[in-house]
């Protein structure tokens, strides 16, 4: 007897998001499977961040359901928020590091909250997470305001990894980085993805990142999501998708990726 397939990591069905009379998502479907890197793309104001906040359980959907590992996020959020938040790691657009804590303290913050351990152990774990994202132990003692943009993104990733989630949600992880730092971040992400067997959902506008890292892409158009592999997207006839993947910027990246 074949085993039933495990439920997808994220399953969004018929999501409706409304702000007043403005409808952002109108029956959006999305499925993310275990161990893939899923890119979310869409024009400004198409509700990419709203989608992420809904998946995280920070925002109640106006219609439809969101499931993480086959369990409804709304119910999880109501019943047992702490087990919900331990199942994913998140980075926000601007890092969202707590500005009055050092980087190491930021990393230890969720650990301290959920898993009591001695200072020595916490220091070692901070060191581990700093090492994973390629930061120096010495950087752990710095405050967020003393970090460069790239380091902020890495520190935020270290904090997201600290509870060892199987699912990472990243909101514009390479936005605002120079191409070299962005490429290094892509490599880091791929490395962690393969080594830690993570499932990654990434909102990004960075075509380089998209082509380099993502196995599947979901494009939000007219409040719905069109999901396909990158190659499939390149063949797609939707005008916005054509514009996006065949615009002047995309052509250069494509050439590089295929040539």
């Amino acid at each position, binding site marked *: 007897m074949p085993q039933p397939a495990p439920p997808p990591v994220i399953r969004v069905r018929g999501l409706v998001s409304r702000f007043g009379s403005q409808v952002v998502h109108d029956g959006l479907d999305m499925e993310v499977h275990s161990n893939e890197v899923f890119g979310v793309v869409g024009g400004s104001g198409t509700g990419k961040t709203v989608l992420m906040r809904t998946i995280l359980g920070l925002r109640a959907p106006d219609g439809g359901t969101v499931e993480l590992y086959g369990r409804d996020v709304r119910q999880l959020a109501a019943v047992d928020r702490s087990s919900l938040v331990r199942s994913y790691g998140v980075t926000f657009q601007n890092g969202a590091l707590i*500005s*009055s804590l050092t980087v190491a303290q930021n990393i230890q913050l969720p*650990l301290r909250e*959920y*898993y*009591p*351990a*001695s200072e020595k*152990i916490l220091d*070692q*774990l901070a*060191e*581990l997470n700093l*090492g*994973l994202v390629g930061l120096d*132990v*010495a950087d752990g003692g710095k*405050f*967020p*305001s003393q970090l460069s943009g790239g380091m902020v993104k890495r520190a935020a990733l270290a904090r997201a990894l600290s*509870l*060892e989630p199987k699912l990472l949600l990243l909101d514009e992880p390479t936005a605002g980085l120079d191409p070299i730092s962005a490429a290094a971040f892509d490599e880091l992400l791929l490395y962690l993805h393969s*080594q*830690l*067997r993570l499932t990654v959902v990434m909102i990004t506008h960075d075509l380089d990142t998209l082509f380099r890292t993502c196995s599947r892409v979901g494009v939000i158009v007219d409040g719905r999501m069109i999901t396909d592999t990158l190659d499939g997207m390149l063949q797609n006839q939707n005008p916005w998708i054509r514009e996006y993947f065949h615009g002047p910027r995309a052509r250069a990246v494509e050439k590089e990726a295929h040539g």
Partner: protein
Amino acid sequence: MTVLELEGEGDDRRLYLSGDWSLPALGQIEAQLRGLPGELRGTLVCDWSGAEAPAMGAAWVLLMRLTEIGAPHLDIRHVGEPHYLELLQNLQASKGRAPAVPDAAESPGPLSELGRWSVLQGRHAETALGFYGGIVRVLGAAFFRPRALRVSSLARHIYETGITAIPIVCLIAFLISVIVAYLGAQQLSRFGADIFVVDLVTISVLREMGVLLTAIIVAGRSGSAFAAEIGVMQLNEETDALRAMGMSPIELLVVPRVLALVIALPLLTIIADAMGLAGGGLLSLLNLHIPLVQFTFRLREALSPTTFWAGLIKAPIFAFLIAMVGTYRGMQVRDSARELGRLTTVAVVQSIFMVILADALFAVLFVKINF
């Protein structure tokens, strides 16, 4: 339950891991690790096969502990290890010798401490003076370029600091004068001098209470708001953006607030004075049965022509102090949300202190010049 068992003798040992090695068990894991002998030599085989879903953090902590007790004489091999162990080992290798933590700076002697403090205070004084100078310069320039006064912004701040403060100022002035009149009446009626309650209330309200209480309320309301607003703009780099566009934050943010408060506070003081007198009159009528006609008559007797002005003249000075401190502290915010909170608190405490200090100086001055 976390289990860690060490088997074997001498140079050839096996370490069995079993049970719960997830992050929630960190406390137990730590206790188990502490139970390992202080030093090991030879070869050690780590058997992970019994551990249930070992967490990366737990594995890392174990590796660190093994290095601590074994290196460099222990040869560690792993059996049934989790998939990320190689990653951890690479990390550990690349970490190498942890960079030496720099020794804490030698604690300075009291003299150098004093020197450092003095220099710091000197610098603070310099920036505060520069800030004051910036305001004066903008005000001076406004004579030749009235546009620099930003009328719309000024109007908004007058509305926010003045008009919206009217209810609370009225209430407080009214209540305080009622309290003063009530307590005064109790004392004075023992001498049959009830009527002098009018003197007590009017002089204290007009000279001191009205303006002082209004200034303190405004310091709490607007001084903190100034510091917080400008502080958040500092954190968002909005002030830097203004500077980069060739606009002065002092002209755009500070001067409108200072001017608005200098205009609003005297007006609020007049309202507070009126409410204070009303409170005194009402209490005299109800409690002491002094009719309002008699109250007004006595009021004219009690007041010298300068009493009202002795209170009001202080208002713009207080306003200037409050707005200066609030905006200055706001401009000092750097880097973190905690700084914002700290400096907002400092702004309120310091502006109230400055107001009371200035009031004391005025009191001495007015006595000396018989005002």
